[in-house]
């Protein structure tokens, strides 16, 4: 009898080579073939007390679905995942797994953790290509009407959950396409838009109505939805869609963009396919992106794909503090993005036509930890340099857009303008109104927005059923 089996290493998902993909918008990782997925699944120890599940904000039953993958029962696997997570194809791609499920995986203590995200993605992608997966049962119509404001992952979760419970659901979206950040923010090469469209179509098949081109607060208000349109409950999931700028001189020069604008033009409006699509976008010779989160990585990698060779990430802390997903940083480095750590912009310098041509940077050093527990960046006196920059993208965070809150009576907001809502139920101070996702927590993650949506859907269902 063999004493010890040869350990299977973590299986790497095949991906496009860096030198090729840095010039195209096709997805970077290509997905697991079935054999690789099953091999990777075999690395899971099926823990009795799975630590990975604790790391997942929505408690996907990870060992159970991975077991099904081991057995080759992919239908079983997807049904398991769906119990907790409506968007595995999305989450498998964009969750910060290293801080969540995979960060907790026991195998990761000695070896690399089980590739939970990649397996989730594999199962979801497999399921999308089948046509005999049973539709989730839809309960008898209740006659109750729910309005969902915003079609990001939070709003979509609420819509999907409540339609199954037999309620009538209409999603109102300001843009012309549903999906929220999944369509306007996260680029095609990281999350193909066909996947988001598939999820939305699936919702429509279940009976969810989508009304795009409706800006709640302008086209119609929350109070009008409740009082005039006969909705029994409203869920607000409008995200954190207010761009933050640096507030430094020269910021209104041409060539200076918020990441929101730059990414909306390229993703939602498909400017990267100009002139086939009409929305224009510029290609920079010298690109500087300010910030170090996922948004910054997306802007960096998009500008590289738009044809730039000199693309810099300007971040005021050090590499260790970069908030982006590990995979994105890794991919960005492979693609040739240059990192300027410990630099902070002082001002933009323009040319005679009003275009940005350079940026002045202050060198920083890390001092004592601040409120966030991270070491505070402080200027090094006298260390200022100027670098060429004809395209600047500002990705230093987002805030709350007041369009909805300022037009709704009796909604409580905190000092940053986010809606005050119960963490578990999403209940706001205003009767019949729930809220969740980025508009409550501030810019966070897809899975947290989806999780908040699930909690709110349960609470809305209780209210519609029992009146509380």
């Amino acid at each position, binding site marked *: 009898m063999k004493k010890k089996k040869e350990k299977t290493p973590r299986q790497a998902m095949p991906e496009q080579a860096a030198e090729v993909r840095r010039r195209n918008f096709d997805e970077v990782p290509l997905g697991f073939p079935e054999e690789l997925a099953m091999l990777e699944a075999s690395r899971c120890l099926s823990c009795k007390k799975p630590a990975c599940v604790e790391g997942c904000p929505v408690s996907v039953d990870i060992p159970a679905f991975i077991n099904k993958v081991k057995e080759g029962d992919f239908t079983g696997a997807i049904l398991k995942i769906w119990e907790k997570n409506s968007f595995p194809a999305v989450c498998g791609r964009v969750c910060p797994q290293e801080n969540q499920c995979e960060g907790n995986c026991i195998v990761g203590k000695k070896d690399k953790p089980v590739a939970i995200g990649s397996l989730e993605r594999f199962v979801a992608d497999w399921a999308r290509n089948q046509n005999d997966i049973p539709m989730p049962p839809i309960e008898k119509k209740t006659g109750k009407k729910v309005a969902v404001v915003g079609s990001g992952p939070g709003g979509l979760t609420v819509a999907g959950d409540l339609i199954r419970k037999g309620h009538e659901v209409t999603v109102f979206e300001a843009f012309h396409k549903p999906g929220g950040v999944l369509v306007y923010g996260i680029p095609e090469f990281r999350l193909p838009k066909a996947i988001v469209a598939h999820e939305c179509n699936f919702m429509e098949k279940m009976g969810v109505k989508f009304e795009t081109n*409706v*800006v709640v607060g302008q086209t119609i208000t929350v109070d009008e939805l409740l009082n005039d349109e006969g909705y029994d409950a409203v869920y607000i999931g409008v995200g954190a869609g207010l761009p933050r700028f640096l507030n430094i001189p020269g910021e*209104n020069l041409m060539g200076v963009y918020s990441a929101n604008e730059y990414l*909306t033009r390229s993703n939602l409006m498909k400017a990267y396919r100009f002139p086939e*699509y009409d929305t*224009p976008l510029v290609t920079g010779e010298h690109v500087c992106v300010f910030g170090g989160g996922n948004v910054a990585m997306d802007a960096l990698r998009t500008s590289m794909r738009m044809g730039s060779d000199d693309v810099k990430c300007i971040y005021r802390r050090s590499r260790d503090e970069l908030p982006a997903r590990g995979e994105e940083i890794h991919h960005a480095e492979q693609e040739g993005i240059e990192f300027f750590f410990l630099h902070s912009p002082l001002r933009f310098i323009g040319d005679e036509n*009003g275009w940005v041509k350079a940026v002045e940077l202050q060198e920083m050093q890390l001092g004592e930890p601040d409120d966030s527990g991270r070491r505070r960046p402080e200027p090094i006196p006298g260390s200022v340099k100027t670098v060429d920059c004809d395209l600047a993208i500002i990705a230093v965070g987002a805030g709350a*857009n007041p369009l909805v809150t300022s037009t709704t009576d009796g909604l409580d907001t905190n000092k940053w303008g986010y809606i005050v809502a119960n963490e578990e139920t999403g209940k706001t101070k205003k009767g019949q109104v729930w809220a969740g996702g980025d508009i409550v927590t501030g810019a966070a993650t897809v899975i947290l927005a989806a999780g908040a949506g699930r909690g709110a859907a349960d609470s809305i269902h209780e209210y519609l059923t029992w009146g509380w």
Partner: protein
Amino acid sequence: MYQILSKTELAQGTVVANEIHAPKIAAKAKPGQFIILRVNETGERIPLTMANTNEERGTITIIYQVVGKTTALLASMSAMDHLADVVGPLGRPTPIEKKGTIICVGGGTGVAVLHPITKGFKEAGNHVIAIIGARNKDLLIMEKEMKAASNELYVCTDDGSYGHHGFVTDVLKEQLEKHGAAVKEAVCIGPVPMMKFCSKVTKDFGIPTMVSLNAIMVDGTGMCGCCRVQVGDETKFACVDGPEFDAHKVDFDGLSARLTAYQKQEKEAMDAYQKKCSCSTEA
């Protein structure tokens, strides 16, 4: 959805009016507000002001000058065609109150934007003096409508082919000299240089003045910051903080510069479009 119900050519076909079915917007729109539309699936989003709305018919009217690819494409649509998307009403409505005498100045297609505001001020009980201008007689639009919407109407053309020979600023100055402090507010809407010069004139007279800024926009809901304009020492988003602002604080030169950001691509798009159009008509 968003069916074009009628199409009228004004100013020798360089300006087009469309009545569009958009009942939700029609029910909500107020003077000064705009919509953003997308003609088709590959189209860009462009902002246009509602020159009129008809709640009963559930329609809005847009009047636009054909200046590039998207407006050309829009002008090529026939009555009964559908637009891919129309969203609105966007922006803040013009604050309209009874104040006394109001001067409304419009240039070029700005007259279309000015019309509902002028009408609003008159309906609120103000004495409204309207001054409208165009490069020449053929490009002048909405004279009849503006006459009905105001108490006094003055018309100018740059080349003197109709009305006063000269710029709207000349007539504006005359009227301010004539009425003095009775004028409580001026509203000036048109090309950026025109608004800039009108603003200079009214500043000398100390008359509060509003201008409607046509910054480049994408979403129109305050999420991208593309439309930012410098007003006093603040950066404002034209789509949600405006489009109307205190003329005496606006950085018109900064606005003019930002409006040129995509000139190269706009020309490329228009050239390709015109080439395609001429091919298809030949075939």
